[in-house]
């Protein structure tokens, strides 16, 4: 069992998400940076769908009530196990009464804590991913306790990248309404830097705008990584907790790797769109 001694700034439990329910208007949810979450699970030989703690920006303190193995992966945080520094991407043995604490993010924005065998948290519509109105809790709370699961081992491959997470380039392909853009917009999108403003699990916004417009489309499908254009010229990158349909033009689409890269960005960070061709 693991006990939450301090709920941190924003910690949720996530697995690979609630797939197959969008037909009922249910948001996907799931790991924001799936590359890192997969790595944390993979290094413990967990199934890549196993639930993990997703720790954002800073904070979080956990006490273990039984022996187990853990792995952390993603952003570089100041992490300590009983006052000893803990490294990312290593399988670590923990003992009963050990205390794991997360400080501030040094580089990146989200770090994942996986536990061997998995975390036994509430499962709704085939997923443990927390989402308000679906699961009882939308974040973990101080004092919560979670049992461990003993789920079977998996030998599934995970992507073993290193260093790619903190790059500036975000790969995008053209969205179905890209054709509405004028040449100024396309120039800006291809050449200028965009600075991240408000952001959360639903979406990322930027300080820089492109041209205001009066485009609107009938409500149409969107997925994580879809970049919408609002009438005022603002860009919104939809993330894991975004809606399933939207009425704003879909001008770009991030690739999977870049969804992970963007998830490691925080307010003030700059990104550059890098156009790619699909197929």
């Amino acid at each position: 069992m693991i006990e939450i001694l301090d709920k941190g700034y924003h910690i949720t439990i996530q697995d690979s998400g609630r797939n197959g329910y969008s037909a009922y208007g249910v948001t996907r949810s799931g790991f924001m940076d799936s590359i890192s979450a997969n790595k944390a699970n993979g290094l413990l030989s967990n199934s890549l769908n196993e639930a993990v703690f997703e720790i954002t920006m800073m904070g979080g303190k956990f006490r273990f009530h039984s022996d187990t193995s853990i792995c952390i992966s993603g952003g570089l945080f100041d992490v300590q196990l009983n006052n000893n520094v803990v490294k990312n991407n290593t399988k670590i043995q923990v003992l009963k009464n050990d205390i794991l604490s997360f400080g501030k993010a040094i580089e990146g924005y989200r770090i994942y804590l996986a536990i061997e065998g998995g975390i036994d948290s509430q499962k709704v519509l085939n997923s443990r991913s927390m989402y308000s109105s679906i699961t009882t809790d939308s974040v973990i709370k101080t004092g919560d306790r979670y049992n461990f699961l003993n789920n079977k081992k998996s030998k599934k491959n995970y992507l073993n990248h290193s260093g790619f997470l903190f790059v500036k380039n975000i790969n995008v392909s053209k969205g179905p309404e890209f054709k509405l853009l004028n040449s100024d917009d396309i120039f800006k999108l291809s050449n200028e830097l965009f600075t991240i403003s408000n952001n959360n699990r639903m979406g990322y916004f930027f300080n820089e705008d492109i041209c205001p417009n009066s485009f609107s489309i009938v409500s149409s499908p969107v997925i994580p990584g879809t970049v919408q254009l609002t009438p005022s010229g603002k860009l919104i990158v939809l993330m894991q907790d975004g809606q399933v349909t939207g009425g704003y033009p879909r001008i770009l689409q991030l690739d999977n790797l870049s969804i992970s890269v963007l998830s490691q960005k925080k307010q003030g960070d700059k990104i550059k769109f890098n156009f790619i061709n699909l197929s």
Partner: protein
Amino acid sequence: MKKFKIDFFHYSSSSILLSWPNIISVEISNDIHNFIKHIRNEKNILEIIKGYSSVLVQYRNDIADFDLSCDSLNKTYNESLKQNSENKIIWEIPVCYESDFAKDIKVYSEKVLLSREQVINLHSSNIYYLHMYGFIPGFMYLGGLNKKLSITRKKIPDRKILKGSVAIGGGQTGVYPADSPGGWYVIGNTPINLFNLNNNSSPVNIPVGDYVQFKSISSVEYYDIKKKVEKDKYQFVKKYNHD
């Protein structure tokens, strides 16, 4: 069945967007629903998301050959045209339009220049087509609102619209399946649950492609139904549409 021209778009490494002519119509939505029925059990498909006039098919793995995948989808579409003639069902949604359940009905009636009774009659006499779910879990995108009931959405959305609220915004009407912020005018409330988390296979009762109709009920009936809902004894009322 009329055959529509479908446009295929490579939306992401693992997904294809299929677009029908870009208009909101029951005929097009029905054609898309019918197509979805023919692909939804394919094991290599992860997610199918329907919009008014398009559908996004996301596969479990990256698409190896886009043209080949499109050909296969197109073939399935052509096959789907051969069988589509089910009787459509009309589902009844009981609504109490009394003041305690309809915080905006007074202001709304004044704005649309109708009496309260006219609003209730117009709203509960039409049959609405369920195009899809979206916005929040269990929220129905309904087509078929009488044009006289259209209203510009509130400039400043309400922070909290109560679960069960029946509301109108723009040319649309809908029911809030859970508490939510929203910019629509609340003209009534239904005691029934439109989204049920205990049912993993389908958390909704009313399938997309069917119809709904609102039925005006008194506050006494409202609480009777609510009791049944709480005891899990409420039975949805439905009838066949013989158009």
